[in-house]
């Protein structure tokens, strides 16, 4: 759910791994981010509408991943996939680290790109710079 840069890249990777992937976005224009060879289904619709989730067959999915720009939309859709459609793996992106912690404690599988990104940058900084790259 959410065909932004992350959603499109993730959908492509998962398909390359051999999974059947369906992409949902509120805007048809978002699907331009998918490569031409992407075979999965593309659906236009609102992921926090249970009728939409039923229509695209979330009930039969092994995993549901919410990566829209809205933390709250992701949180709500993920909980709907779990509670209403019994999806076993429901992953959710939450930018706000505090909210992420709250929902992790409630049992959602959550990722905060804010914290992950900051940690990656710190680790990169702490490593020695690659040799021969200084001064160009």
């Amino acid at each position, binding site marked *: 759910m959410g065909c932004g840069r992350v959603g499109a890249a993730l959908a492509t990777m998962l398909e390359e791994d051999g999974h059947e992937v369906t992409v949902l976005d509120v805007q048809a224009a978002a699907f331009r981010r998918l490569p031409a060879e992407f075979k999965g289904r593309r659906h236009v619709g609102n992921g*926090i*509408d*249970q*009728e939409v989730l*039923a*229509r695209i067959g979330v009930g039969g999915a092994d995993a549901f991943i919410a990566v829209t720009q*809205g*933390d*709250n*939309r992701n*949180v*709500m859709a993920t*909980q*709907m996939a779990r*509670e*209403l459609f019994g999806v076993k793996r429901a992953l959710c992106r939450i930018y*706000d680290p*505090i*909210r992420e912690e*709250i929902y992790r*404690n*409630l049992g959602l599988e959550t990722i905060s790109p804010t914290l992950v990104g900051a940690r990656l940058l710190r680790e990169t900084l702490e490593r020695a710079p690659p040799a021969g790259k200084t001064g160009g």
Partner: protein
Amino acid sequence: MYIIVIGAGKVGYYLAKELLAEGENEVLVIEKDGAKCERIAEELGDIVLRGDGCEAATMSLAGFGRADMVIAVTGDDEDNLVSCQVAKVKFNVPRTVARINNPKNEEIFRRLGIDATISATAAILAHIEQELPTHPLIPLLTLRMGLEIVGLKIPPTAAVVGKRVGELMLPQQSLIALIIDSRGSPNAPTGQTVIQAEDEVVAVTRTENEGALRAALTAPSTSEPFGAAASGQ
């Protein structure tokens, strides 16, 4: 009572005003939009906090920890859900109430622990049910596990008129629980009960089968009205 209202649109504004008028309440409105905050401050006084009602920092500042009730009435169901959930989980607010814009969200909100939901859409639908003779399916109540109770009136043109309940081809996991005849008498139907025009049918169905159920109960017989005219000759 200390009552926190999230969202200062029309609903939030009038709600805060009424709660204040009761006199006993301490009320705080949380709103992101500066202009809406100013309107509240000008007209209702110093009872507004500008910020995001889903953000834990704002919630701490607002004193959610001592709130007796949180009422989330923004125009976005997902924001109302998260405000109420965080209020419950992180701040132990005893009672949370959410406005829902999509009446279908009632069940998920309840299952996620929100104490009460209010849907203007559902309230209006319930109200106009009696007014419209051939109104489509009315969702009356959302049950657990994707089931719901719906009501509809059998139009005189429907193919099911004159058929027994046992003969009906209903979608999976749908059943007719109650038939109210045109004189207003409620009956628990058996397989032998005959469907009459203008019967009000209360049925249980799965959310995704709503459309199929409506079609099964309201679709006109294919030869109407000429068939009926022909048989009369």
